[in-house]
């Protein structure tokens, strides 16, 4: 029995852990921006970690349930309400047939992950239910959730434990200022030593253009380029390169002005130089940054990146143990 969408919130999309394997054709892996939050929400309701849930930005949807279910909301602090009564985030909440799930105002973070027992069971495309609207893949007919949609649910893999909750110390949110660790590389040599230093010294702010494709930052000093004759076909601006692939998490700075970090729905390539890449351990955090959040970029080496990656999987394991 499906869920009826009464209102859709902002940019609410169906997301799972994505469809890797098609980036060479311009189809990004997609999936939840904050992977840990979606995995955790799924575990709380008895789903496999990669089941499809909803990703809502700033404002949650209003959903009418037509059967009993368990839901959990993780990631942003967007408190859920059942028939108007406020419930806890990061907690398994029972819902009865006929009840309505809605949300309070956002208190912290940017993206809430709503898992529902059984998982959303729209047809997968290229192995994933994740919504990639540009390519009309996944989601509801290739698009975001709209009022009037009905969302089918799958079969629950194991019964949920009502009231099961994630200890607060295991919930990860960005610090203030937010810190994103960056491994310099790619076209790092294109900017001057002063620019290299300024990039890490300055405090930036998340711009309004911040979505699943990429996060833009403002407020730092403009980056100067090492002079060169532009290579054939690269374009006239010193920030241009011969069109190349863009790594997920790569930091491009068109004309040296505003850094853009590419995220899960990245464009797969283009003609802007990149100064480095946000390490995999910090990608989830980006999804929780609101516009205007002060942000520092922290320079790290590969060893630090791999240690951080290891720490992140240990943190996920701690959650698995805490709620198993």
């Amino acid at each position: 029995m499906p869920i009826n969408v009464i209102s859709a919130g902002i940019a609410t999309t169906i997301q799972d852990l994505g469809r890797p394997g098609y980036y060479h054709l311009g189809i990004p892996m997609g999936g939840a921006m904050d992977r840990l939050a979606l995995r955790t929400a799924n575990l709380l309701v008895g789903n496999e970690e990669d089941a499809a849930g909803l990703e809502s930005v700033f404002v949650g949807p209003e959903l009418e349930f037509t059967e009993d279910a368990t839901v959990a909301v993780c990631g942003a602090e967007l408190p859920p309400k059942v028939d108007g009564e406020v419930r806890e985030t990061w907690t398994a909440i029972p819902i009865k047939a006929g009840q309505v799930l809605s949300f309070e105002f956002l208190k912290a973070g940017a993206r809430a992950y709503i898992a529902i027992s059984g998982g959303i069971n729209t047809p997968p495309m290229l192995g994933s239910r994740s919504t990639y609207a540009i390519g009309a893949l996944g989601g509801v007919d290739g698009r975001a959730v709209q009022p009037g949609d009905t969302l089918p649910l799958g079969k629950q893999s194991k019964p949920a434990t009502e009231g099961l909750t994630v200890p607060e110390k295991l919930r990860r949110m960005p610090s203030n200022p937010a810190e994103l660790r960056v491994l310099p590389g790619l076209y790092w040599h294109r900017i001057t030593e002063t620019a290299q230093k300024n990039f890490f010294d300055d405090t930036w702010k998340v711009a309004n253009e911040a979505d699943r494709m990429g996060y833009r930052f403002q407020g730092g000093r403009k980056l100067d380029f090492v002079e060169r004759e532009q290579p054939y076909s690269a374009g006239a601006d010193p920030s241009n390169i011969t069109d190349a692939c863009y790594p997920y998490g790569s930091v491009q700075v068109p004309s040296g002005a505003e850094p853009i970090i590419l995220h899960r729905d990245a464009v797969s390539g283009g003609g802007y130089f990149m100064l480095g890449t946000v390490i995999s351990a910090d990608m989830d955090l980006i999804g929780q940054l609101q516009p205007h959040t002060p942000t520092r970029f922290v320079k790290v080496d590969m060893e630090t990146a791999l240690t951080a990656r290891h720490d992140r999987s240990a943190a996920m394991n701690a959650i698995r143990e805490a709620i198993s």
Partner: protein
Amino acid sequence: MSSRYTFGGDEHIFVEVEEAMSLEAFFVSLSMTNAVREADIKGITEICPANASFQIKFDPEVIKPDDLMAELKRLEETAEKAEPVLDTRIIEIPVYYQDPWTHETLMRFRERHQDPNATDIEYAASINGYESVEKFIEAHSGAPWFVSMVGFVSGLPFLYQMVDRARQIQVPKYLRPRTDTPKLTVGYGGSFSCIYSVRGAGGYQMFGITPMPIYDPQQSVSYLKDFLVFFKPGDIVKWKPINREEYDAAIEEVQANTFTPRIRNVRFSLDDYNADIDGSNAKLMEALYAD
């Protein structure tokens, strides 16, 4: 070749074959990515060729970044010794140049263009020294093109013309990107043609439109049943100018799902090409139109 290897965070290795675009650099990128695919290295999750560079995505828990880097450098030595030939396909793509739909769109964004008093193709023809748009279309559709990259979004091909540098068309992108581009627009930016696979924002000059679907998430188009994206890096394309009548007829075929692109298998040799570009291109045309 002196490729530059660099890490893109802890999950990507990025290899720049050359800073500048050339058919040679593209060929190395394509051979290297083919060699990497054949080597079947555990831990590699994505292999992405681009114009003069390529990118490998990997799982650092399966293979250490430094080990993979060393492995790729070893493969480059092997790839360098390989004969530069490519077994690929050549495809005829019909193009309705100066069509009403891209014209309507370019008129809406005139203030973002270098020359508000000319159309995109008039501007491109003029700055490349062609006496008329007709002569320009002859050049654009005369010699064939290599698909040197598929990406940006959903199966969008970038194409590089198979002529010497002196004959290459160069056109800057729009001053500020448009917020709209019709689906299947044939565009141009820098020294690359492209086909917009989906409607959306874009900065490339708009020359025309093709009736031939190249991306179909529903996979209902007959020749996209097996996979939703038509193009692969290494495909060779020949543009065929068509008029309104031919365009309408092709659209009818597309709607009836009877449209079939002309595709032939060919072997391309970079050495033969460098020895005699026009002769090598003529052979490709023979292969495309022999039957």
